[in-house]
C-alpha cells in the first residue's frame, strides 16, 4: 500500500511540473463533483432523519377518521381543533411553567455549587483535596437506578418530595459531572491571576465571583446545555418524586395524557408537536452555544 502511494506521489509531482494548470482544474472538478454528491447524500439522509417529525406534524392536523384511513397522505385541511383540545388537556402553560421552574432552579444550584467546589479543589494540591476529587469522581460511575429506591424513600421520609426535593436530587446527581468539567477548565486558568487579586486586597469569595466565575463562562454554557436537556426531558425521577398534580412537568403530564387518550392519536399528536416545537425553536436560535457546549464537554 505504502509503496504504491509513494509511486503515485512521484508520478503526480512530475505531472505537476509539466502542467500545473491542468492539474488544478482537474482536482477542482473532482472536488466539485465530490462536493455535489456529498450534498446529495446529506439531503437524502436529512429527509430520512426528518421524516418521523414530518409524519407527526401532518397527522396532527387530521381528524380521527382521516388518521384511521391513511397516515401517509397530507391532511385535507388545517384542522387546529386538535391543538385547542390538547392545549387544554395538557394544561400546557402550567406544565411548562413547572418544567421551567425545576429546570432553571436546578441549573442555578448546579452552576454555583459545582464551580465553587471545583475552584476550591483546583487551588489546593494537598492529599485531602485529591482524595475529595476522587470521591466526587466516583459519582460519575453510579447509575441512577442503583440509588433510586433508597433515595426516594429518604426524601419521602423527610417530606422533601416535589419541587425543592427534586432540585436537590438533581443537584446531587449532576454535581460530579459538573465539578469534573469545571475542574478541567480551572487547570487552564493560571494561579497567578488569583495571586494578583490577593495583592489587590480581594478575599477568596471576591476572587471566585469577580475573577474565576467570569473566566469559566464557556464551561458554564456546556454545563447548562448538557443538564438542561436532561432536566427538561426527564420522566423517571419526577414520576417518583412529584405527587401533586398541580406540579406535573411536561413529560409527566404527557404520560398521563397519553394513558387517558390512548387510541385518540389526533389529540396525542397535536400534544406531541406542541411540546416538541418550542425546544426545537430554542435550539435553532441558540444552536451555536449548544454545539460548542457539547463539543467542549466532550473534548475536556
Amino acid at each position: 500500500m505504502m509503496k504504491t502511494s509513494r509511486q503515485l506521489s512521484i508520478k503526480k509531482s512530475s505531472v505537476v511540473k509539466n502542467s500545473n494548470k491542468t492539474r488544478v482544474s482537474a482536482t477542482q472538478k473532482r472536488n466539485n463533483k465530490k462536493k455535489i454528491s456529498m450534498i446529495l447524500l446529506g439531503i437524502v439522509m436529512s429527509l430520512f432523519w426528518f421524516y418521523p417529525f414530518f409524519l407527526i406534524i401532518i397527522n396532527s392536523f387530521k381528524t380521527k377518521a382521516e388518521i384511521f384511513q391513511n397516515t401517509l397522505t397530507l391532511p385535507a385541511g388545517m384542522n387546529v381543533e386538535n391543538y385547542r383540545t390538547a392545549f387544554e388537556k395538557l394544561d400546557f402553560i402550567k406544565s411548562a411553567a413547572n418544567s421551567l421552574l425545576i429546570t432553571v432552579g436546578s441549573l442555578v444550584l448546579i452552576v454555583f455549587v459545582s464551580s465553587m467546589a471545583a475552584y476550591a479543589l483546583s487551588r489546593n494540591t494537598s492529599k485531602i483535596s485529591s482524595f475529595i476529587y476522587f470521591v466526587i469522581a466516583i459519582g460519575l460511575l453510579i447509575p441512577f437506578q442503583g440509588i433510586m429506591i433508597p433515595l426516594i424513600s429518604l426524601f419521602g421520609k423527610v417530606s422533601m418530595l416535589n419541587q425543592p426535593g427534586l432540585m436537590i436530587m438533581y443537584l446531587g446527581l449532576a454535581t460530579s459531572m459538573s465539578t469534573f468539567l469545571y475542574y478541567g477548565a480551572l487547570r487552564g486558568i493560571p494561579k497567578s491571576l488569583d495571586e494578583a487579586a490577593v495583592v489587590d486586597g480581594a478575599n477568596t469569595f471576591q476572587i471566585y465571583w469577580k475573577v474565576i466565575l467570569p473566566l469559566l463562562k464557556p464551561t458554564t454554557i456546556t454545563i447548562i446545555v448538557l443538564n438542561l436537556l436532561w432536566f427538561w426531558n426527564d420522566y423517571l425521577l419526577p414520576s417518583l418524586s412529584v405527587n401533586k398534580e398541580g406540579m406535573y412537568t411536561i413529560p409527566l403530564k404527557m404520560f398521563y395524557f397519553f394513558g387517558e387518550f390512548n387510541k385518540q392519536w389526533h389529540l396525542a399528536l397535536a400534544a406531541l408537536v406542541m411540546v416538541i416545537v418550542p425546544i426545537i425553536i430554542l435550539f435553532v436560535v441558540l444552536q451555536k452555544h449548544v454545539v460548542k457546549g457539547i463539543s467542549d464537554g466532550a473534548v475536556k
Partner: protein
Amino acid sequence: MLTNRSKSFWLLLAPALIALIIVLFIPLLTGSYYSLTDWNGNTVGSFIGLDNYIKAFQDQGFIDSLIFTAKFSVVSVILINVIALMLATLVTQKLGKWTTLFRTIFFMPNLIGGIILGFIWQFIFNKAFESIADLTGIEFFAGWLNTPATGFWGLVILFVWQMSGYMMLIYISFLNNIPEEILEAADIDGASPLQTFFRIKLPMLMPAFTVTLFLTLSNAFKIYDQNLALTQGGPYNSTQMAAMNIYNEAFSMRNMGFAQSKAIIFLVIIVVISIIQISITRKKEISA
C-alpha cells in the same frame, strides 16, 4: 491560600459535598443495607442476609431483562457510533451552508425526551407502518411492536435515531481538531478517502471513543423512559429492560429490599463495564 486549614476551602466545598452525601452516598449505604432485608417500603425489614441476591439470580424475569438490556446495548452502541461517525464525516466535508442544516437535523431528535420519543415512534411503528403495509402489501411493515423481535428493533431504531446526532457532534469536534496539513499531505501522497479515514482519522479519533463509548454504553444500559413509552416491556415482558424490571419490582410489587438487591447487581455491572471500557480505550489512546 486555600489550604486544608482555611475556612474558605471548606466553605466552597461544603454545598457540593453535602449534596453528594445526601443524594448519592447515604442512599448507597442505606440501599446496601436494605438489599439484605425483606423491607417492603413501610415497615423496617428484618435482616435476611444474602437471600435477596440468591433470589435475584434465580429470578428468570430479571435475568431475561439483563440479557435483553445487554443485547440492546451492544447492538445500539455499534449502530450509533458507526452512523454517528458517518454523519460526522459527511458534515465535515466543507459543504458551506449545508453543514449547519445537516447538523441541525441530525441532532434534532436528541432534544426530545425519552417519553415523547417513545410516543412518536409508537405512532410510526403502529400507524404509519400499518399504512405502508396496507399500501404496498409488504408483510415486513405489519404488526410492529407486537413481537419480541420487532419490539427489540423498534427500541434500537428509536435509540439510534435519538443518540446518533449527539455522538456526531462529539466526533465532529475531534475531526475538526485534526491538523489540516496532515490531511493535505495524505491527499498529495495520493491516499484515497478511505485510506485517509482508516489510517489517519480513525487513529486520531481514539480519545473521542473513550467519551462516546462511555456515553452510549451507560445511556443504553440505563434506558427507562423510552422503554416505558414505546413497548412498556411488552409483549409479555419480552422487551423489559433491567431498569424497568427494578422499577416494577420496587414500585408495583413493593418488594423494596428485593428490588434494591437487583439495583445493586445492576450498579456493579455498570461500574465494572465502565471501568473496563475506559481502561481499554485509554490504552488505545496512548498507543495511538
